[in-house]
């Protein structure tokens, strides 16, 4: 048959017009009409239904991931020094990058939900039965591939969250018997996490896994077409066509999914706008944590929410060691997958289908329950009333959690003991939850600071963001201080609500605002100098300085108020701190007083006043960077406390060949942090 004849025979009217003829031309050579027809005019037995939309919606979700993923790829750079940096750039500097990344991030989560719905619908409708068994198995494989892409994608920003979650996931892979360690090493690209972990995860995430997925998807769809749609029985309505009846429902579902995702991304912007705040586009969409740091504890480490159930499930086996983990992370999930794979066969038995439905629902319920438990453990501090635990908390502090002491404390009241013990359990949970919430808050602050630093005009150093974060006094100072100084010194704003308690507990001076005019004024105040914020809890409590402040400075005749103001002004200036306006003119006079041998200079050396070092700290450059670095390095140096040093260790000094407790860089960071010297973005 000639082509036009064939067309006439197939009932296709010969079209006129340019487009009609072009379509004919193409159809003659490709036969596309038959293909399109085949694709669209599928019979839907019993008519279109909403319950059939999940498969199409999943395909749509996957296509969205392919599109956004390719565009993200155009901006992403997988290496330990550029992954976080390039994702930061996408999120905060590339126009529309926040939206692109947001869609990709949330669509990945939507896909997991859609997968669960699709699976549920297939099992409940019994659509796995003959002849569709193979397609059901293909579906399970597709599910694994999608979860694999979710897992690998989580690491790619190379932030703290993704990094630590991946450490856990790959270590779990490492406990598989025999092949485990090799498998783990292959996946992370060597014995250590780094460049090759990223290149490999990226190749898996954007190459191997999606390519495999597409192959399976093509077969999945072809088989779906071959067997036709499995209709929900009983069929009460007339059959309909896939196009447009079912497509309409599918399209509405796709639009709804996209609307939800856009809603999640844009909701914070709307909230900010309603509150009259400025919207930072970079803060919308997917989160970006602080850059991955193997040396920094990260107590906020959690997997993505859809893996939380597994995380919680592993806790069931706590105390079983590696066997427990092997059991919880590999055996049990493996068994569940096996049962699922057997569903088409089990479904043929009497009651088999009911078993399958019950099993699936039970698994989903279990997943839901475990997720709820995990969330409850992490967030219980938000809703448990801590005040109701006050008595238990007090008893816990008194007895140190010792049961025998508790019995004694309660005079043998057994009912009360039991009640308190129960409350202790709750207390322990609340404390853990609070620790998690604090860790999350800290992680958020670190993330925000990293973003702030990345925006400096000097940009990110070639060695990467981590180096910049590690050189940042604001990020590192509080940690180093807490670790090395905080066991003695307080660092709390005296006006803060809990300041008094914190200061009373400390055994050395409160260093908040050290070097400032306010700090100095407190030191020179007879009521404070021997208090816990200054020398109260130290060996200097009875020292010369305390008696000088109490006896000499209170004598208005020798030390009129103006003189004290002058000393305060001079010392703040010495520390390089701002001198308050009203005493700014007194700096020179103050310097003379500090230097004078009948005033401060009697004990303290100051700017070459001739006083010998050793009796009291040298006040030259007091509170400045060099001075602080010096005293942290070695307070026993004659410039500082010499042999009168109380208990302060020499952090920068060590015996020959030994490593001092703090490196010079770390001491610099502490000094800069105490002085409030760190990068601050210019205010726009």
């Amino acid at each position, binding site marked *: 048959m000639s082509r036009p004849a064939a067309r006439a025979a197939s009932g296709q009217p010969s079209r006129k017009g340019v487009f009609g003829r072009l379509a004919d031309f193409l159809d003659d050579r490709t036969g596309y009409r*038959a293909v399109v027809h085949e694709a669209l005019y599928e019979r839907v037995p019993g008519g279109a239904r909403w319950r059939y939309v999940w498969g199409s919606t999943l395909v749509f979700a996957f296509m969205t991931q392919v599109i956004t993923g390719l565009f993200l790829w155009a901006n992403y750079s997988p290496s330990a020094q550029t992954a976080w940096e390039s994702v930061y750039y996408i999120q905060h500097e590339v126009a529309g990058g926040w939206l692109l990344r947001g869609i990709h991030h949330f669509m990945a989560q939507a896909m997991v939900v859609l997968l669960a719905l699709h699976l549920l619908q297939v099992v409940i409708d019994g659509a796995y039965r003959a002849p569709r068994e193979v397609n059901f198995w293909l579906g399970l494989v597709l599910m694994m591939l999608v979860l694999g892409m979710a897992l690998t994608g989580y690491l790619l920003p190379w932030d703290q969250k993704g990094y630590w979650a991946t450490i856990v996931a790959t270590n779990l892979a490492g406990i598989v018997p025999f092949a485990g360690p090799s498998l783990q090493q292959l996946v992370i690209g060597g014995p250590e996490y780094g460049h090759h972990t990223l290149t490999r995860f990226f190749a898996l995430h954007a190459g191997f896994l999606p390519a495999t997925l597409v192959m399976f998807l093509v077969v999945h769809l072809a088989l779906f077409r071959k*067997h036709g749609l499995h209709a929900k029985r009983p069929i009460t309505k007339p059959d309909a066509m896939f196009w*447009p009846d079912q*497509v309409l429902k599918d*399209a509405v579902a796709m639009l709804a999914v996209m609307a939800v995702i856009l809603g999640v991304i844009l909701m914070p912007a709307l909230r900010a706008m309603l509150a009259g705040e400025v919207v930072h586009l970079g803060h919308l969409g997917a989160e970006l944590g602080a850059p991955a740091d193997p040396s920094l504890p990260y107590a906020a480490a959690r997997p993505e929410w859809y893996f939380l159930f597994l995380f919680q499930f592993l806790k069931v086996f706590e105390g079983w060691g590696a066997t427990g983990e092997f059991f919880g992370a590999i055996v049990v999930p493996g068994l569940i997958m096996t049962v699922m794979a057997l569903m088409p066969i089990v479904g043929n038995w009497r009651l088999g289908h009911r078993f399958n439905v019950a099993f699936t629902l039970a698994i989903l319920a279990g997943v839901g329950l475990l997720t709820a438990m995990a969330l409850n453990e992490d967030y219980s501090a938000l809703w448990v009333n801590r005040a109701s635990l006050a008595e238990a908390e007090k008893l816990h502090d008194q007895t140190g959690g010792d049961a025998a002491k508790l019995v004694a404390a309660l005079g043998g009241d057994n009912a009360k003991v039991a009640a308190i013990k129960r409350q202790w359990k709750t207390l322990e949970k609340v404390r853990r939850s609070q620790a998690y919430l604090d860790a999350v808050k800290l992680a958020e602050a670190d993330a925000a600071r990293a973003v702030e630093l990345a925006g400096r005009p000097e940009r*990110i150093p070639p060695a990467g963001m981590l180096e910049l974060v590690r050189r940042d006094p604001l990020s590192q100072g509080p940690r180093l201080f807490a670790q090395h100084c905080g066991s003695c010194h307080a660092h709390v704003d005296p006006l803060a609500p809990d300041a008094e308690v914190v200061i009373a507990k400390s055994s050395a001076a409160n260093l908040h605002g050290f070097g400032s005019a306010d700090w100095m004024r407190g030191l020179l105040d007879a009521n404070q100098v021997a208090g816990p914020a200054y020398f109260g809890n130290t060996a200097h409590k009875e020292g010369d300085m305390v008696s000088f402040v109490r006896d000499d400075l209170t004598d208005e005749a020798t030390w009129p108020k103006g003189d004290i103001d002058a000393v305060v002004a001079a010392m703040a200036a010495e520390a390089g701190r701002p001198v308050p306006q009203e005493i700014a003119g007194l700096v020179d006079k103050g310097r003379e007083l500090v230097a004078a041998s009948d005033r401060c200079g009697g004990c303290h050396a100051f700017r070459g006043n001739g006083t010998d070092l050793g009796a009291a700290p040298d006040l030259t450059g007091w509170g400045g960077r060099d001075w602080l670095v010096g005293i942290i390095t070695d307070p026993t140096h004659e410039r500082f406390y010499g042999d009168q040093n109380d208990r302060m260790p020499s952090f920068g000094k060590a015996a020959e060949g030994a490593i001092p407790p703090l490196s010079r860089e770390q001491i610099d960071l502490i000094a800069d942090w105490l002085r409030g010297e760190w990068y601050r973005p210019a205010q726009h």
Partner: protein
Amino acid sequence: MARPHGNNSAASVRPDDRSRGADPLAARREFMAKVVALACGGLATIPPVVAGLWAFLDPLRRTRGAASFLSVADLAAIPDDGLPRQFPVIADRVDAWTGFAAEPVGAVYLSREQGSREVRALSATCPHAGCFIDLEKATQCFRCPCHNSSFTLDGNIVNPSPSPRAMDELECRVGGNGQVEVKWQKYRAGIAEKVVQG
């Protein structure tokens, strides 16, 4: 288990087979369904495509910073024999998110006549297609290794050469401290006119 709806080949069901042609209401409904389906599907696809293209076009927003004078050498380092010598150009450079401090970003040829304090600066970038031009000691001329464009020591073109113009001369000044400063600029390759690259 029977196969209630197995193998219902789509080809056996044609839209024409359906009786809706007789029912104008059903035909209208179907038309509406098609329009709404296409509209919803299209709308759902817009966000990823728009976000992707929006980000993809971002490089078009980026511009090179304004050219500035960079100190490249000490006057004394350039012998006054009229022969060009190659000097690296050191500058701070930003590559997307990375900031490089004081990095070699290119090279210039500097020469000066006997006794003169005036320095002539030629960019080492070939005006043909951007390769790095060599100074050939043996033949006393500039030669580009990529397609063999040749230039005299003054930077003038030696024909036949594929380069459409002479070597690009850069603005050059000598500061009071004897520092030779060059206005570091790139020009568009492959055209006869010397046009600054934005």
